[in-house]
C-alpha cells in the first residue's frame, strides 16, 4: 500500500510549493508503468488531505498509457500490463512513456 506514501508525498509537495494557499483541485498524471494504482491514490486522498490546505480538494487523475519501442523489430507498441514484451517476442525494448508519476497542476482558491 505504497499509494498512501505516494499520496502523502503529493500533499507534502503541494504544501511546500504553495504554503498557505487553499487548494481546490489537484491534477496528477499517473502512467500505466509507474507502479502506482490510481484507484488506490483516490482512496487515500481524502484521508490524507484531512486537516491540510488540500482538504476538500477535487482529485483529477490522468492515466497515461504505456508506450514501448522494440529495438529488434523497430515497432512501437502498447505493453500488456506491466510486462514490457514486444509482440515479436523480443525483450530488448525501450520504454517511451507510461512511467510518469507527477503533479501536473493545482487549482488555488
Amino acid at each position, binding site marked *: 500500500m*505504497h499509494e498512501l506514501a505516494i499520496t502523502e508525498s503529493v500533499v*507534502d509537495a503541494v504544501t511546500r510549493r504553495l504554503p498557505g494557499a487553499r487548494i481546490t483541485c489537484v491534477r496528477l498524471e499517473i502512467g500505466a508503468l509507474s507502479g502506482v494504482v490510481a484507484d488506490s491514490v483516490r482512496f487515500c486522498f481524502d484521508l490524507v488531505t484531512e486537516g491540510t490546505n488540500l482538504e476538500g480538494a477535487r482529485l483529477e487523475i490522468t492515466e497515461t498509457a504505456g508506450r514501448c519501442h522494440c529495438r529488434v523489430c523497430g515497432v512501437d507498441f502498447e505493453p500488456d500490463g506491466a510486462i514490457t514484451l514486444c509482440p515479436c517476442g523480443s525483450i530488448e525494448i525501450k520504454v517511451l512513456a507510461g512511467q510518469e*508519476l507527477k503533479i501536473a497542476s493545482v487549482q488555488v*482558491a
Partner: protein
Amino acid sequence: MCATCGCSGSGAVIQLFPAGHANHEHLSHEHGASHDHGASHDHGASHDHEGPGDADPIPATSAESAERTVLLEQKVLAKNDHLAELNRDWLRQRGVLAVNLMSSPGAGKTTLLERTARELAGKMDISVIEGGQAGVLDARRIRSAGCLVVQINTGAGCHLDAEMVAEGLRVLDPPSGSVVVIENVGNLVCPALFDLGEQARVVLASVTEGDDKPVKYPHMFRRADLVLVSKTDLLPYVDFDSRQHAADVRRSSPSALMLQVSATTGAGMQEWYDWLRRRTPAPQE
C-alpha cells in the same frame, strides 16, 4: 503521519547494534522531525535537504480574484529521489558500496546475510542496515554473525525511504572500502518505487515462493541488477520451474544477472561474494 513513508505514530526508530556487544544503543529518531542532514552526514557542501524540490515556494497572491491554476509539473517522488542522490554522492565520495536487498517476507534475506557475514569475516568489511516494521530480531541475528548493524523500524511503513537510509548511514558510519547491505522491509511491491541511493539492487526470490513472482511483481524485478534464487537446496521438494522463472525474470529485466544460492548448504554463495567484491571500491588513503 510521516510525509515520506506514510507511517503513523512516532515514525521510524533507529537503533545501533555494535558487533559483539550485548546491548544496543537507542538512537530514537523522530522520523519527519527536522534533523540536519548536512554537517555530520558530510553530504558535501552545505545544502539543505528540503530541496527536492529544487522548486521554491510559490508565494500566495493576495485575495485578488477567483481561482487560478498553478502548473507544478513536479515528480511526486522528487523529494525522495533528491535525498537518494545525496546518499549516492556521499557513498561514492566515501568509497562505500551500498546494496538494496529486497524480497517478500521469508525469502531468506537475513539468513543469506548471516552466512555472508560469517564467511566473509576478516575478508570483507560488511555492515547492515536492517529495515522492518517492528522488533529487533533480525538485527540480533546479524549482530550475532559478527556484523555491525543498524535497525530501522518503520512503524506502519511498508518500505525504507532515502531519508531513513541517510540517517542509518550516518549512525553506521561505514569505512571506506566497505559494503553496506540495506535489508529492506519484506515486500515485493512498495520498496520497488523508493530509490535509497544504493548502487545496486538485489532481489531475492526463494524457490518456496513459487516461480510466478516475476510475472506477478514485474516492478520489483524490472530494476534489479542481480536476482538471487534462494533456498535452492529445497528444489527437489517444491514445484518450481527454474527455466520458466529465469525466462520471466529476463522479460522484466533483460540485463539482470541471475545466481542460484543456498544459504543452508552454501551452494552458489561464492559467486554472490565475488559479485559483491567486484563492485566494492578500493579503500581510500
